């Protein structure tokens, strides 16, 4: 199966598939959209959500005097089998968008936090947001040319991560590398999920 760069179109949705989602978080230019594009079977698209108290200014007439914040979220779609579709959403990382992030995170499997070792300071607030959401996560270091390459243990220490939190390195432009990062996340989620007892 190929990414969205392939000439092969994404399978058409029937409407009866099971859908699930993973959030891809990270600071600006950490590579979220690149990663989503690498694994998605559709060209990443952008959806918007507005933050308003009453949701009243939706008539798109843009009347003066109305204030609204529009948050754009890139996302992609990946058909994992005939009946299972995974959506990857680029999560808005600004703390003021937390309500939208909460909404987006509702029901998500987990978060892949994409980080750039040259800008770890920018990653900490996002890490905080993810922890506030209560979603499990894995850290993927997006490899940039010339960026420091600390060991996973060193990163865990610096970022004050739990010993069990996966830290992997990836290249957001490379499909199999992004896939492996997602596999690390899901494998981690399985270790957090008890064996069925019902």
């Amino acid at each position, binding site marked *: *199966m190929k990414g969205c760069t392939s000439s092969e179109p994404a399978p*058409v*949705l*029937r*409407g*009866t*598939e*099971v*859908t*699930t*989602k993973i959030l891809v978080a990270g600071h600006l230019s950490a590579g979220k959209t690149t990663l989503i594009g690498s*694994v998605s079977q559709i060209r990443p*698209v*952008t*959806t*918007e*959500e*507005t933050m*308003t108290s*009453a*949701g*009243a200014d*939706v*008539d*798109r*007439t843009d009347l003066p005097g109305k204030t609204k914040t*529009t948050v754009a*979220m890139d*996302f992609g*779609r*990946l058909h*994992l*089998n005939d009946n*299972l*579709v*995974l*959506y990857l*959403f680029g999560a808005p990382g600004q703390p003021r968008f937390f309500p939208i992030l909460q*909404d*987006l995170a*509702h*029901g998500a*499997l987990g978060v892949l936090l994409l980080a750039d070792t040259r800008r770890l300071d920018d990653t900490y607030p996002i890490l905080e947001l993810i922890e506030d959401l209560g979603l499990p996560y894995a850290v993927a270091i997006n490899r940039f040319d010339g960026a420091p390459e600390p060991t996973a243990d060193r990163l865990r220490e610096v970022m004050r991560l739990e010993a069990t939190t996966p830290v992997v390195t990836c290249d957001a432009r490379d*499909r*199999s590398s992004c*896939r492996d990062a*997602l*596999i690390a996340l*899901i*494998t981690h*989620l*399985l270790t*957090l*999920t*008890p*064996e*069925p007892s019902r």
Partner: protein
Amino acid sequence: MTSAGHGGDPLVRTYVVTGGRATASRNTFDFVTLVALSPYSPQPGRAQLNHEQNAILDLLARSAQSVAELGALLNLPICVVRILLADLMETGHITTAGRIHEAAEAPDRTLLEAVLEGLHKL
């Protein structure tokens, strides 16, 4: 609440409908809830529908879509899409046959294992 039977300016209708229910349909229409045309034949009439609702039905005539994709394709915020969909559900135009994993609980192993297997096969 429904504004069926209230013709007139589609912008006003959207505004009115949306103003009343900014968050009510969250559980029905997640970002990844799949929406499809209802199997009723013939489809209910469209006379009472506004421009955006008609656009949604036109898209769904081609294939089912997720709420997020409808928002992206129509350039509408998700909160608006949700409310338009809630109305289309009430009027019998659409259905949400697919299901999203129940969100309140931790994801179950079966789902995670299926995701894992799917990723390995890529």
